[in-house]
């Protein structure tokens, strides 16, 4: 690690200039400085990681590099010459390509149309041919004629990457590219990136998945609260040391202990659950079975859109199944019970989308308590709302889960993602439910909040509750779960003890393999 000041020197002399250098970049939104005196140096052919928590200013910085936004002050140098990048088209002309976190693809258009939009006008047929060539050269299989809404997320990302590659980029910016990929797809992506870097293309890789950064990158710049706090060589650091640079503090690193979990009674039982998809874009659940015992945390892994949303709806009672026998809560068949009945039976739920599903953004925290606990905790028992009880609850959640907000009883939307997530998880855990089902418990929250939430889930199980975690984050699954099952195409694998699983094994299941007919490598992933 070296101090940031050392990096921003002159590049006079025989040394060739860096490909991209940013000096003193400041970006203000009103009084808030999203970037404050940021410096960044990327050498040709370098795989450079940009690390930081949510809201650290990573996306703001790359948007300025790509010309989507303008810095309030500061300078960019490209091959040693000062440049002002007014718009993305100029960035592309210079040789900067970008793959966005939320893909900037157009679902209603075909693959070739999507790619044509980013390139100078040319005949579609010739372009389709070039797409085929590039996709073969880099192992990115795709059919140019397909409509994009029929593609998987991994394939959509390929569309974006091919779109960049066709512009012969010298710098490829990747914003959280692996958040939707299986470990195997990630491996393929890394091979493509290694190949590109070997050809001299620099990569700016934005991520908070530190193990991946260690595997891929050879330099890193770490941002915190809009400022550069460190430069480091990821290969020489540990994931934990980089995480602490990101957070700026020692963090309570939550790790699963191989404790004698389970042994308690079956508290949540899913029994041959079948559910037809509601639309062409949905997933049909096929014959799902799972038992969660008291005292254990069971994780359901899988990439996005494999049936997690449908399973969650079936568990919460938002969608009723055909028969009561498909879902048992503490032994009571509840497959056709509404959410309130399930909550009364001692179950609690935290859906994935915190703002809009788990909480109503325009309502205050105490009103959001009422929405969840109106009957189960008797806050609005006979049609009348007990406001003092509701605000008492809100206060206890805020205290117990370190929910930080600007005022006493703010509206939910005014909380940061991490604080709102702590609130919606804490609201359910404070009930000490016998069964807790939580989807994506720490998606998009900072490391501090994530460790509070993960600790609380483990503590709840230790008190004898059954906890079911549906997550796409393998690091999370491995850090808190006692047993792991994998969902793929609406089917659920058998659950395996976490100690017997490796990320690779889970990855194969996520890709649809059956462990029985596949040789599973057992060594740990790098």
């Amino acid at each position, binding site marked *: 690690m070296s101090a940031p000041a050392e990096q921003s020197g002159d590049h006079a002399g025989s040394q060739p200039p860096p490909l991209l250098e940013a000096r003193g970049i400041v970006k203000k939104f009103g009084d808030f400085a999203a970037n404050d005196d940021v410096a960044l140096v990327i050498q040709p052919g370098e795989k450079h990681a940009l690390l930081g928590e949510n809201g650290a200013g990573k996306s703001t910085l790359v948007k300025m590099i790509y010309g989507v936004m303008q810095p309030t002050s500061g300078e960019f140098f490209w091959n040693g010459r000062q440049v002002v990048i007014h718009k993305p088209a100029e960035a592309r002309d210079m040789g900067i390509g970008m793959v966005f976190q*939320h893909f900037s693809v*157009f679902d*209603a*258009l075909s693959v070739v*149309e999507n790619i*044509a939009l980013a390139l100078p*006008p040319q005949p579609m047929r010739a372009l389709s041919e070039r797409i085929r060539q590039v996709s073969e050269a880099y192992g990115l299989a795709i059919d140019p004629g397909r409509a994009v*809404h029929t593609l998987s997320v991994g394939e959509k990302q390929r569309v974006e990457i091919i779109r960049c590659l066709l512009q012969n980029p010298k710098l490829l910016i990747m914003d959280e590219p692996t958040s939707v990929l299986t470990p195997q797809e990630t491996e393929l992506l890394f091979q493509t990136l290694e190949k590109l870097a070997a050809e001299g293309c620099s990569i700016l890789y934005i991520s908070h998945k530190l193990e991946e950064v260690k595997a891929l990158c050879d330099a890193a710049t770490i941002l915190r609260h809009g400022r550069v706090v460190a430069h480091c060589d990821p290969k020489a650091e540990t994931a934990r040391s980089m995480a602490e640079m990101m957070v700026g503090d020692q963090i309570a690193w939550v790790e699963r202990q191989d404790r004698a979990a389970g042994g308690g009674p079956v508290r949540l039982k899913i029994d041959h659950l079948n559910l037809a998809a509601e*639309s*062409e874009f949905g997933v049909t659940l096929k014959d799902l079975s799972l038992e969660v015992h008291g005292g254990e945390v069971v994780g359901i892994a899988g990439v996005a859109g494999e049936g997690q949303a449908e399973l969650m709806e079936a568990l919460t009672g938002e969608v009723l199944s055909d028969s009561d026998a498909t879902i048992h809560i503490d032994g009571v068949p509840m497959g056709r019970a509404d959410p309130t009945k399930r909550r009364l039976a001692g179950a609690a739920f935290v859906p994935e989308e915190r703002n809009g599903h788990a909480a109503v953004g325009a309502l205050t925290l105490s009103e959001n308590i009422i929405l969840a606990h109106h009957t189960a905790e008797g806050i609005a028992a006979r049609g009348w709302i007990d406001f003092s009880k509701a605000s008492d609850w809100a206060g206890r959640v805020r205290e117990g889960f370190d929910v930080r907000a600007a005022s006493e009883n703010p509206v939910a939307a005014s909380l940061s993602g991490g604080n709102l997530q702590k609130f919606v998880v804490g609201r359910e855990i404070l009930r000490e439910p016998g069964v807790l089902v939580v989807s994506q418990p720490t998606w998009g929250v900072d490391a501090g909040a994530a460790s509070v939430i993960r600790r609380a889930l483990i503590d709840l199980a230790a008190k004898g509750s059954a906890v079911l975690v549906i997550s796409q984050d393998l690091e999370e699954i491995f850090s808190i779960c006692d047993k792991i099952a994998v969902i793929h195409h609406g089917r659920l694998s058998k659950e395996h003890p976490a100690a017997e699983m490796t990320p690779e094994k889970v990855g194969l299941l996520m890709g649809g393999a059956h462990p029985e007919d596949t040789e599973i490598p057992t060594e740990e992933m790098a």
Partner: protein
Amino acid sequence: MENFFFQMIIAATPLLLAAIGELVTERSGVLNLGVEGMMLMGAVSAFAVANSTGSSTLGIVAGAGAGLLMALIFCVIALSLLANQAATGLALTIFGIGASGLIGQGFVGVALEPLAKLSVPFLSDATMLGRILLGHDVMVYLALALAAGVAWFLYSTRGGLALRAVGDNHDSGHALGYNVIGIRYLATMFGGACAGLGGAYLSLAYTPMWAENMTAGRGWIALALVVFATWRPWRVVAGAYLFAAVTQLQFYGQDWGLPVASQFLAMAPYVATILALVIISRDVNLTKANAPACIGRPFRAER
């Protein structure tokens, strides 16, 4: 029967003009509910100019111009100032009804020479098909040419691709460097000009006179037609002719001795509108796969 089809083509023309314009607007991601108001302003402006200059060509231009100006008002309020699009569109319709009545005060009851019919020697009269299809005024063919032009533009040009792209995902369009607001201004103003043409057709050709509120809900039917056609140009053409046929039933139904009260026949186009929308909405995938995903959503570029 021959007359029925001849009149059907005429009745379809204002619907087709307004709907094809609104289709372009909506494809860019803008929902302009002000079609009725824009048609009325087009109708009264076209009549006023044609009446005072004696030139129906100038009248047509004035009608398109009035619709375009109305759409420009919508653009400033809804796209630049980010007001709610539905509310702005409704306000535009109410404004159009009032303002056209005011402008048209002096023209009520004034007669105008209808738009000249074209005629192709021999062919126009020789066969029944010739008599139905040929011998209409120029705007009937202009409307069809416009629909063909829109279909070609949307699916075969880069400008059309960019327009569909910003309607599908304005954030991505912006990130790729497209001027989302600029494209939407142009698309909405094109839609306004087309609605104005539709109005002009009513007051210059369909019933060559001015009467308050003479569009009688055609703007709303045009809006429904766009949904009915699932945002496809050629389906808009088919839809417009279909609705026009239903409209004509009220005039011809009794002649043919249909055992239905005339009030019901007069209701038919509106009932058909509702039925068509219900049937289309039943199949979620049909609308989902074709509807511009960003329709009605305000766009603000982060800078």
